[in-house]
């Protein structure tokens, strides 16, 4: 397969088109505006729908309408815009509608900065909106993965009738990298016989709804959702752990910091230090069993979590998974600053020294 040079955001948009995205609803925000721009230019070529919404709220609710009527629907934004979409995302989760939401994260809080960051981990993995719900969260660490995950996200969403978030950061969105367009594994997807797209002879009305005024009924919805989330956890949890077989120090990182960590890891290995990387690919479901097992291995002495976040957000999940088996340290920057290789190398040496 031939390699092509693509800018992250444009590749994400093209990937969605190739995945059969029927409609895109979006609003401009840096650093993801190339997604709606690409969609505006190319969706009509395929006879599909692009609408620039009046707000992020409207965009996610257009997604709700289209998804509820059985379409493959998508929106994208960056952190402050994703905050506005949370209302719609919880409604999508409550009404069990498939949808793909791309977050090209930037620094916060508030208006923050337009530079890349990872401050939306909590928001993405803990639900973000009101109520007990989860979205599947896929975290690409390069443009190739962004392209692959966006395509797969539509299938995962359809398979489980659940919103899927592709959690990238501004670096992945803005960077140009060589990619190949490859086939994603085919899934057996259920028919959308629940869609409210007109009865057309059906003997009952289809209703898309997240309102269950009777507490027992609402409880039953939540029980059903929990069962679905358990199945997603069982089937979709993904991670990779290069060089962890003999590692004394395990670096945990996702997205862009995972790439920086690999360079740091290579330097440390050259110096004779046994360092590995544990990279969650799904942030929800978090690969907690795998990390728990790895942390329990005798050769592992310490864990170092690296994030583009000031005090660590994934760090909570790392702690929950490690369960105190090994000491955990953290290094990170927020607000658009990116951890350097040198910083990680230094922090790794310190963590190892303290653990030995």
């Amino acid at each position: 397969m031939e390699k092509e040079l693509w800018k992250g955001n444009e590749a994400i948009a093209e990937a969605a088109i190739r995945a059969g995205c029927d409609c895109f609803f979006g609003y401009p925000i840096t650093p993801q505006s190339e997604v709606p721009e690409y969609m505006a230019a190319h969706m009509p070529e395929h006879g599909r729908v692009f609408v620039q919404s009046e707000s992020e709220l409207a965009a996610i609710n257009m997604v709700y309408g289209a998804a509820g009527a059985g379409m493959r629907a998508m929106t994208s934004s960056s952190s402050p815009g994703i905050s506005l979409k949370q209302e719609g995302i919880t409604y999508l989760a409550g009404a069990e509608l498939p949808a793909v939401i791309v977050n090209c994260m930037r620094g916060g809080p508030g208006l923050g900065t337009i530079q890349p960051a990872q401050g939306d981990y909590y928001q993405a993995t803990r639900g973000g909106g009101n109520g007990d719900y989860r979205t599947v969260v896929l975290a690409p660490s390069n443009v190739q993965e962004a392209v692959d995950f966006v395509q797969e996200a539509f299938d995962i969403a359809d398979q489980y009738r659940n919103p899927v978030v592709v959690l990238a950061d501004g670096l992945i969105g803005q960077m140009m990298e060589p990619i190949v367009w490859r086939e994603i594994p085919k899934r057996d997807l259920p028919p959308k016989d629940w869609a409210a797209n007109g009865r057309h002879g059906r003997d009952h009305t289809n209703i898309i709804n997240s309102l269950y005024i009777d507490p027992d009924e609402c409880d039953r919805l939540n029980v059903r959702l929990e069962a679905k989330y358990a199945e997603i956890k069982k089937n979709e949890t993904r991670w990779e752990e290069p060089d962890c077989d003999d590692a004394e120090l395990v670096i945990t990182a996702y997205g862009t910091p995972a790439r920086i960590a690999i360079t740091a890891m290579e330097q440390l290995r050259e110096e004779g230090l046994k360092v590995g990387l544990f990279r969650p690919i799904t942030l929800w479901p978090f690969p907690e069993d795998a990390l728990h097992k790895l942390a329990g291995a005798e050769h592992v002495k310490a864990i170092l979590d690296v994030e583009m976040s000031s005090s660590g957000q994934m760090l909570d999940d790392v702690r929950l998974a490690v369960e105190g088996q090994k000491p955990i340290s953290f290094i990170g920057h927020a607000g658009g600053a990116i951890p350097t290789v040198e910083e990680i190398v230094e922090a790794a040496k310190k963590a190892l020294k303290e653990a030995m």
Partner: protein
Amino acid sequence: MAIVYQKSKGLTDKELHYCPGCNHGIIHKLVAEVMEELGIIDDTIGICPVGCSVFAYNYFACDMLEAAHGRAPAVATGIKRTHPNAPVFTYQGDGDLASIGAAEIVHAAMRGEKITTIFVNNAIYGMTGGQMAPTTLIGQKATTAPLGRTKEQAGMPIRVAEMLATLDGCVYAERVCVTDIPNLNKAKRAIKKAFQKQLAGEGFTFVEVLSTCPTNWGMTPLKARQWLLDNMVPYYPLGVIKDIDAEAEAK
């Protein structure tokens, strides 16, 4: 035996939850009858709001979506753009449409979305227990305006039909009420016309229906009906506010 009246096929058999004297039941009936007369029950997709008519998805016999508060026009946009041949309507109250959903309705109208919005204006938040709405009249009491709405504190009530009529994308806007048979017939004609213009692909169509809320107005149904005629109609005048066809003919 000849049947002189029967419930519209556009309604389900579900028992309505509305308060005695509330106009929602009548307005539902009119929308249902229009769908039936146009033969579109089987194709139509409706969107209901958050507010008193939040359960409307149980009452209409077409496919329905329940939208977040105020977002029905955005939800309708997502549906209509991907299903251009489906009749699509939103059914919204004044808190939903004129307050929290003001942006969504204005932009749906601006874009000329080929949908029909039934806007039920009873000048108060009904479901949450009688709080002030953007449409609450000056002097009218509400639980969040215990001494009555004042211009100084809350501004003047919003006339949504007139506001939307300023937008080119809105091809039809009419205000009606259902206080008596002549008005009810006018209301039905307006709703039918709005759907017909939508089906003809003309643009955004809007029917504002003035409605009573005896429970939260603290009146009997009959008094509430009279209060609407005496107080709401003078501020919210009935009639066609915009009709692109009629305007073209008049020229």
